[in-house]
């Protein structure tokens, strides 16, 4: 390949003059483009561009991935024909042109084709079309540029947005009044239809899903997702959600062939094959039914539990830490799979039916119904799902821990004394009594065998476990291990039992009333100092409880 051309001084002079006159005739040369960026000024006349046969290669020698300027590509889509738009079909590399309103187009949009003295685009089906793409200013708010597609905002009957100019067949924003001109009016087309992706709808997960999405074929539509990750309780801790975070869970984020197929395709967090393990059109859990939907079980068993297990999202390559699979994780994935193990001494009935007879009408329970509908309808123990306690949105919730009920766990955990518990402690009751019958536990006489669960020395009028009277510790004062108490005790005291509300096998530490005993019935609350089962009853150490500052209460007996 010969590189050096004959030196032809006269030819060069002519060429330079031609180039300069052309530049001057089209206005000032764009300050970001020097002549020599594209022109070989000292080659033979007629060979001003070295890459003329495929001009985008010339443009992309600067404007491309891994190069030195912004990322661009050409309009390669062939959905509506075999034409191919290339850089100079829309851009004049020499200057920002004057548009038909006398303003100046940005980004060198528009050319002088078709004999026009102002910016036009020579389109495949409509011939030369005027194009306006200039700074909008602050008059309309939001957009800094127009008109990608403005639905003839100026009302002159001419659709001159840079996207509209060419469109004659797409569904949205054609260059006449036909079709749908309402598609995301007021938004910037290239947020979703990126130049670098040939204007195909590929703006990135978070760019497009910051607003509701409807691809125009009816349900299912997609709600705005990004904002959900900023709610009080949410997945992706420690930072804003990114496109990469989406790819931890969604196959659509890594394989565009699954995008916009009217299905949500979830990845198996433990499988690197990048195939869908669960697919559904739209997800919901009907909490008024004790029959768990098939898709609920599918998502729970094959998706949620694959991540919330001891090895986390072992296939995720986002953060390099499978226990913190998202890009900004600041805490490990809670291993609830292990906590739901039916072999544990206590567990909520997610991985299998429970073993607590008090949750089953009949038999040893004395036919006392201790569950609220719909969980009170069977003579066998029901199985519940993640989504009976947690919201089914998956991304976030206004409630802490993505629960279906608002509880201020942070304030509760910050309390060091029952007397300082916030009122939200009562909300724990609201939460628990979504399933557990409130009248049994909150209002029954303390010594009534027929009404419900009995707490010796904790009467209704006295120290009942309700926020509306007596102390306000709520259910989790004794059950579930959420409360962090007893400053000064070893750090693995009761407060370490956080998360036990799902289940577990907790052995009381040596300094507690029931040292060495494996607890049952979720008796790992922060305000007690021990529990052991005695036949059909049990004994509790009062611990800090309402007796904080006094001696431990040894051996109080409970009938159930």
């Amino acid at each position: 390949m010969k590189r050096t051309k004959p030196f032809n001084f006269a030819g060069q002079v002519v060429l330079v003059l031609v180039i300069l006159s052309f530049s001057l005739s089209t206005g000032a040369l764009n300050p970001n483009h020097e002549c020599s960026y594209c022109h070989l000024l000292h080659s033979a006349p007629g060979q001003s561009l070295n890459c003329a046969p495929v001009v985008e290669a010339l443009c992309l020698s600067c404007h491309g991935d891994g190069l030195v300027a912004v990322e661009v590509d050409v309009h390669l889509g062939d959905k509506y024909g075999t034409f191919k738009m290339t850089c100079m079909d829309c851009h004049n590399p020499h200057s920002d042109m004057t548009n038909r309103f006398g303003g100046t187009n940005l980004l060198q949009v528009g050319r002088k084709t078709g004999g026009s003295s102002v910016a036009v685009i020579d389109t495949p089906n409509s011939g030369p079309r005027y194009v306006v793409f200039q700074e909008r200013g602050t008059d309309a708010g939001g957009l800094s540029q127009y008109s990608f597609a403005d639905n003839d905002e100026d009302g002159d009957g001419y659709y001159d947005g840079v996207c509209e100019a060419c469109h004659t067949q797409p569904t949205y924003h054609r260059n006449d009044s036909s079709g749908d001109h309402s598609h995301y009016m007021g938004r910037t087309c290239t947020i979703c239809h990126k130049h670098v992706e040939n204007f195909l709808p590929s703006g990135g997960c978070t760019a497009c899903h910051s607003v509701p999405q409807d691809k125009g074929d009816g349900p299912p539509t997609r709600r705005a997702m990004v904002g959900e990750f900023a709610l009080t309780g949410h997945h992706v801790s420690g930072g804003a959600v990114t496109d990469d975070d989406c790819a931890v869970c969604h196959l659509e984020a890594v394989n565009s062939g699954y995008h916009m197929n009217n299905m949500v395709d979830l990845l198996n967090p433990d499988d690197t094959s990048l195939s869908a393990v669960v697919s559904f059109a739209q997800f919901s859990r009907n909490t008024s039914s004790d029959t768990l939907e098939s898709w609920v079980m599918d998502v729970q068993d094959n998706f949620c539990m694959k991540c919330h297990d001891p090895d986390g999202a072992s296939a995720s390559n986002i953060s390099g830490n499978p226990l913190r699979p998202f890009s900004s994780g600041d805490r490990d994935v809670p291993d609830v799979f292990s906590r739901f193990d039916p072999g544990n001494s206590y567990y909520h009935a997610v991985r299998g039916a429970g073993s607590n007879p008090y949750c089953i009408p009949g038999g040893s329970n004395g036919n006392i119904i201790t569950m609220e509908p719909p969980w009170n309808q069977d003579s066998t123990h029901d199985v519940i799902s993640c989504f009976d306690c947690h919201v089914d949105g998956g991304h976030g919730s206004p409630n802490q821990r993505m629960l279906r009920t608002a509880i201020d766990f942070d304030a509760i955990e910050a309390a060091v004394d029952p007397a300082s518990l916030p009122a939200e402690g009562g909300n724990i009751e609201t939460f628990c009594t979504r399933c557990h019958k409130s009248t049994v536990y909150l209002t029954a006489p303390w010594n009534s065998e027929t009404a419900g669960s009995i707490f010796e020395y904790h009467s209704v009028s006295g120290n009942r476990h309700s926020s509306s009277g007596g102390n306000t510790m709520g259910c989790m004062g004794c059950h579930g291990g959420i409360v962090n108490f007893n400053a000064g005790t070893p750090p693995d005291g009761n407060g370490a039992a956080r998360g036990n509300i799902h289940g577990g096998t907790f052995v009381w530490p040596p300094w507690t009333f029931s040292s060495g005993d494996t607890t049952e019935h979720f008796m790992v609350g922060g305000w007690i100092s021990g529990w052991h089962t005695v036949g059909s009853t049990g004994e509790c150490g009062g611990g800090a409880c309402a007796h904080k500052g006094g001696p431990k209460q040894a051996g109080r007996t409970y009938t159930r």
Partner: protein
Amino acid sequence: MMKHLKFCIILFAAAGILISLPVSGFSGAKETAEGKGRKTDPHRLYYPLRLAFTPEGDLLVSDPRLGMILTVDGKSLKAVQSFPVEGDPLGVAYSKGHIFVGNKSKKCIEVYTRSGKKQYNIGSRGDIRNPTDIAVDTEAGLLFVVDVSDKNVKVFSTKGRFLRSIPAPDPGNLQLATPTAAAVDIGRKEVYVSDYGDDRLGIAPRVQIFDYNGFLLDTVSGDGSGGGGMGMGIPSPRFSRPQGLAVDGAGHLFLLDCFSSEILVFDRDSGELLKTLGGFGTDPGQLQLPLDIVVHPRTKDIYVTNNRAAAVEVFKKGGQL
């Protein structure tokens, strides 16, 4: 490949003079791993950018539009394996079982196993902004990361410890203007950095050669003058968009000019242009926006990412001089 009915065979005389001849039916000089397919196909190239050899002679190819690192068989030039990278993978390098990927989105170097399992990040605390290329000295355990946004080359240990930046902070050193790619000569302990220059500052496109500590040793200028603007007044520019580059350990520098789509071979010491290969076009033997190059140390085959053709090309024995 057999589909090339006409081809350009490149013969070299003993003195290293290049002769280009069209040959009918010849299929051995340049082969192509074409890959212009759907973006969702994990074994098809879409926007091949950077290259690196594996110990087996296969090629690791970064493709930021696919968001993947692909392994291309060195003989068949077919993509045989791939793994996804979340973000925009730019530079790629290989060392001791680790694949180093410059991730523009994550602004760091991500380290993967051969199977694509991510191991750790380098420079994720804001040290790296736009890692367009990576070169590695396996013996020294050094990683050279070209950061076009910061206009420098950052040197890390392969374990991830930041060591220094190139150029060294020395008043005598010319700063990099628009660095795009790098290569290392592990024998000479030299770092070669291609630099678009900056016309507005009167900095010509060039290749700058530094020692490992970042001190400038030499410059190969695109305008043939060793300085000045690349535009008017400077005759016969030799290259204007210097991209990927490679060295053969024998004092030869192989440089891609993605503007002219040529492979230029320079003598390291004299700066003399020894020969060119390629050239812009779609015919066999021609390239469209080539972006990276590697030269096989034994066979002297030259491999190039031919970006607009969405392919990896090989110039058989093109590195022989």
